[in-house]
């Protein structure tokens, strides 16, 4: 079972203060902490679990800058065998379609039985790369996967639907599966593992080696083009309760009392 996992290096923004940069089309990245995309963390773990069960190899691949090596090293430390980074200034401005095209061009020459991606990237949230990749490679796909069972050339999957419901589908391999959070428990990396991973090679390919033309990547090769980024207008804003924690607790208790909730 040879598995390719697509991983993305993304900024952690849930707790950070976000500022829009001078171009008005991107956020200020300085000062943000980057890590592996949350969904990809689960995808990588799932790939390693499958490898441990069925044998084979796990290859992590990313389209990103040199900084993304930290994510690839994490993948190597967690059990990936190989890592590839696709880097070129021309890749900048790529949307999900262009990213998938870059990935497809490289992956089509690699041996694989399965490709795992995250359901979505926490930064752009397109939720398209895995499915586009499948279509470009001419293989089937299933999204939002929460359980994988392998029988010969068929994967039996639980897909997450809305409202707590799931559906079971069967997909012929090779296939692209997009992984949903909660499918497993991503493992922690031992210091030994991290040290070993530092010595492993990361293969780096640029536009020419990937074999695409300039107008097939970046903004030119994309479906959508960013025009303006802005802080969402507030339609409604909470009334903020201020004071010491003690005073705030009193205010909340009073509100609840007034509404007959206590």
């Amino acid at each position, binding site marked *: 079972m040879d598995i390719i996992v697509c991983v993305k290096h993304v900024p952690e923004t849930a707790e950070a203060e976000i500022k829009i940069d001078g171009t008005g089309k991107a956020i200020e990245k300085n000062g943000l902490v980057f890590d592996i995309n949350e969904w990809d963390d689960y995808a990588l773990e799932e790939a390693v679990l499958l490898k441990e069960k069925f044998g084979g190899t796990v290859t992590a691949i990313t389209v990103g800058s040199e900084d993304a090596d930290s994510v690839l090293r994490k993948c190597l430390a967690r059990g990936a065998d190989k890592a590839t980074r696709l880097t070129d200034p021309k890749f900048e401005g790529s949307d999900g*379609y262009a990213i998938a095209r870059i990935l497809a061009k490289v992956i089509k020459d690699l041996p694989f039985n399965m490709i795992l991606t995250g359901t979505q990237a*926490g930064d752009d949230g397109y939720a398209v790369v895995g*499915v586009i990749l499948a279509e470009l490679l001419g293989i089937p796909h299933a999204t939002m996967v929460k359980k994988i069972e392998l029988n010969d050339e068929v994967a039996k999957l639980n897909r997450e639907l809305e409202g707590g419901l799931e*559906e079971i589908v069967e997909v012929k391999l090779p296939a692209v599966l997009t992984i949903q959070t909660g499918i497993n428990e991503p493992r922690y990396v031992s210091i030994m593992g991290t040290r070993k991973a530092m010595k492993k090679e990361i293969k780096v390919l640029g536009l020419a080696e990937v074999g695409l033309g300039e107008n097939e990547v970046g903004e030119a090769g994309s479906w959508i083009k960013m025009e303006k980024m802005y802080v969402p207008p507030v339609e409604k804003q909470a009334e903020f309760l201020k004071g010491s924690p003690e005073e705030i*607790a009193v205010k909340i208790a009073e*509100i609840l009392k007034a509404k007959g909730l206590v």
Partner: protein
Amino acid sequence: MREIFVLTEHRQGQIRDVTFEMLTKGRELAGKTNTELTAVLFGKEVKNHAKILSDYAKNVLLVEDAKLENFNSEAYQKVLSNLIRERKPLLTLIGHTSFGVDLAPSLAVSLGTPLATDCVDLEFEDEKFTVTRQMYGGKVNVNAVLRKAESYIATVRQATFPVEKGAPMNGEIIEVPSPLSEEITKKRFVEYVLPPPGGVDITAAEVLVGIGRGIKDESNIPPVEELAKVLGGALACSRPIVDKGWLPNDRQVGSSGRTVKPKLYIALGISGAFQHVLGMKNSDLIIAVNKDPKAPIFGVADYGVVEDLFKIVPPLKSKIQELKG
């Protein structure tokens, strides 16, 4: 006349709300672009759905086939790409749902049609198709322009466009023969499964205390659960708490969890991602505690507290206990 397609989403005998939301937005867009609104419906014996849709659209394209009984992206893609090639709609709207994300990207590639996903607004202006989307968990909005094309595809965020019925459109139901001559071979629907329920039905609780990733550690949960108990309510949570296995999945509030409408929802350390908000925004009273003053949760809460939740929970619990005597 050119058309705007809305792909009908239905499951287990029910048309899903997102369909009517798209039809409402589609009607507005059709008016502005001088196109006709067309609902597209696939299924097995779904004429009753077609009737309902005819109130909302000028045309209802109906394709019936046993192979279309349950959603299957492989089958749907074959049928929908045929219809799009034939009728060349200006725009095809699909829900940004578990069905839509499984279908739209590969459909767009196969047709060579630009796609924008998870749109919260869409606009045609001077031949330019612009969408509004969110990034970074809802902390910023972007306006994005699609590459100029004959036809576009967009997936639309659920619960974003309010449903307005308007005057019935008496749409014409057009039955289209199914083009699926061969078996669907690569993907097969097996069955629906509902994970076994735990002990607590959060949809029935009048008071819910929802915890998010801000709770940091499993060992911090019991004191918050006590607060919920003191309030006569139950503990609910955002998705990461279930993903980590700290609470069972039937405590999860949101698009892939439960939709709740308690008299009081207290959100502790929850950022307010749209998938969570979808499940709780209709609560009567919402109080949010979050360290980050810019957290999107403050856009849905009635009262907000910018503070460390661990500083608020203990005094709040004792104040409530005092009140109760």
